[in-house]
Every structure is written in structure tokens, then in C-alpha cells.
């Protein structure tokens, strides 16, 4: 299974200045300040489950920008209802990346409830038609391109290797700094 950084590096290389990146809490939000992201970034440090609805509000307000939301499987399991909200709103410019590693990484690596949640099937059942499972960084770049071109809400499920030994940097930016820098 692919490690996080390989996916993150592929995402960062793919994003352009006309994209917008919203990250849920956790490892991705902690890595992003250390990576050369060309898109505006709004990263959460708490607010579990808020990344996708926040990104949806941005996408609906700025239909001229392609918005990418990063969310973890633990966070989406807490509020999967947002999939139906996204499907109903039908934004043509929102791509959700679900980082599925089966663990609550930020809180110490506890496993999610031991159920074989079929994320692509759940998203399709909620009404999101553009769904794909991504298995490697090359596939991620291709899937992102298809998602941006689809003009419909998309969910890409990334199977991420859970690595308890990954040295994730601490949060290095404060919310007021993130808020002040986020300009579209």
C-alpha cells in the first residue's frame, strides 16, 4: 500500500495556483506547511469532519476555482451524511480526497471500528457519480485530472499505508495565520 508522503507529493505537484486546497485535521494538515503548494491552503487542526462541507461552501461561492478537500476515513465515518449534501448541491468544481488508512492517526493510531466500509459504494449510494479508488501516486494525478474535468463532484479514495513510525511534523501554523493568508 502507498505511503502518505508519496500521495501528498503527487498532489502538491499536480495542484496549480487556480486550485484551492482544504485539509482536514491531522497528518496532511501538519505536512502541508513544509511542502511547495502552489494553491491557497486552508488547513484545519481540529474541527473533525468539517473539511468537506467547508470546501463545499468555498466551491459554491467561487465556481471559477477548483476546490480539493482532504479528509480522513475516521472523520468521514463520523459524518458520512456530508456525501449526500455534496451530491445534492452538485458543485461542478469540488474534488474530495479520502485518505483511508483505517486508523485515527492523530489520536494515537487507534483502529477505526472494525467494519469493511466500502467507501466508493457509500459515495455512489449517496448520489456522487464520479468516484474512483486510487492505488498509487501516478493514478492519483490521472484521477485528479479526470475529476477536475468532470464538472461534477468527485470522491477519490486513496488507500494509504498506516505507518505508526512516520515522523509527522507538529502543527507549525496557527489558525489566525492560516486564516489571514487564505485569499482567493
Amino acid at each position, binding site marked *: 500500500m502507498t505511503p502518505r508522503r508519496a500521495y501528498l507529493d503527487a498532489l502538491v505537484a499536480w495542484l496549480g495556483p487556480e486550485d484551492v486546497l*482544504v485539509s482536514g485535521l491531522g497528518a496532511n494538515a501538519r505536512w502541508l506547511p513544509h511542502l511547495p503548494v502552489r494553491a491557497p491552503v*486552508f488547513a*484545519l*487542526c*481540529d*474541527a*473533525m*469532519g*468539517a473539511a468537506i*462541507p*467547508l*470546501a*463545499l*461552501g*468555498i*466551491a*459554491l*461561492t*467561487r465556481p471559477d476555482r477548483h476546490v480539493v478537500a482532504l479528509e480522513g476515513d475516521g472523520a468521514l465515518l463520523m*459524518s458520512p*451524511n*456530508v456525501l*449526500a*449534501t455534496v451530491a*445534492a*448541491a452538485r458543485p461542478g468544481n469540488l474534488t474530495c480526497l479520502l485518505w483511508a488508512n483505517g486508523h485515527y492517526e492523530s489520536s494515537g493510531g487507534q483502529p477505526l471500528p472494525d467494519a469493511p466500509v466500502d467507501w466508493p459504494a457509500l459515495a455512489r449510494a449517496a448520489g456522487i457519480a464520479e468516484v474512483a479508488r486510487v492505488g498509487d501516486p501516478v493514478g492519483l494525478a490521472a484521477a485528479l485530472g479526470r475529476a477536475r474535468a468532470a464538472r461534477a463532484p468527485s470522491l477519490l479514495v486513496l488507500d494509504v499505508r498506516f505507518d505508526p513510525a512516520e515522523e509527522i511534523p507538529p502543527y507549525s501554523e496557527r*489558525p*489566525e495565520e*492560516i*486564516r489571514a493568508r*487564505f485569499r*482567493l
Partner: protein
Amino acid sequence: MDGARRIVEGLEAGGVTLAAAVPDTWIGALTTAVRRSPRIRVVDAAREEEAVALACGAALAGGRGAALMQNAGLLNCGGVLASLVELYRIPCVLVVSWRGDWRDPVYYHAPKGRVTEATLAAWRLPWARADRAGDLAAQVRRGVEFAVASRGPFVLLLSGEDLA
């Protein structure tokens, strides 16, 4: 003019561009009125925390957001209010039906009605009761402007009478 229409006028005057809504009987009637606005996009949310985040997204993208919900939904929103609205200092107006106060004839709302004011105080949320006897549209507009100026939340509590 009916109360719901005056509230919509206030949201429009405050520059609200997106209203994310989870209905109850009263908020459903208000949302129907908001849908008639040419200036405000209604987003139907499945849960109230989403509605708050949606409104915040609108604000971050240069619009102005409001979240419409019952007080049961407000009680759900402690986490997102603290960890998104307050932490990142994002303007966010909540229009909340105050079920279970003395004017509400439905008995099973009473427990929510009893804890609503105390919860708003405990969470240190700026709030007001809708004043239908006064200029309700101006009150709503001032609430939106307060949220923008203070870069934070504002909660307006509605009774069923306010919407009539």
C-alpha cells in the same frame, strides 16, 4: 409583511450569499422564503455541523454565510463552533428556531427550550431573541454585520410567532 420575509430581507441587506439549512417545521418555512431570494443560495445540509462549515466556507471565499437550524441542531454544534468558527475567527450567523420556550405548544421540545439560553451563555455566543415588534429585518442585518465586524458567530433565536 410576514416575519419570514422580513428575516430574508435582513439577510439580503446584510449581504448574505449562502444559507445552509437543516429544517424543522419553523426553519422549513423560513428556508422556503429564503429560496425565493435571488441573492441567497440555499444549500440543503444533512446535519447542522455541516451547515456551519458551509457558511464558513462561503465567508472564506468572499461571500457571507448563514446557517439555519433548530435549537436541537445548535446543541449539536458546540464542537464546530469552537474548533472552526471561534478558532479561525470566521463570521457565521446562525438563525435558530427556539423550540420549547413558553410559546411553543409542542411538549417534547421543552427540555431543549430550557437549556438553550444557558448553553449560549456557557459557549459565550453572542445572541439575541428576534424582536418581531421592532424592525426584524434591521435586526437580522445588524446581526450579520456584527458577525462580520467581530469575525465570529452570532445567533438569532426565533419563535414560531416571529415567522408568522
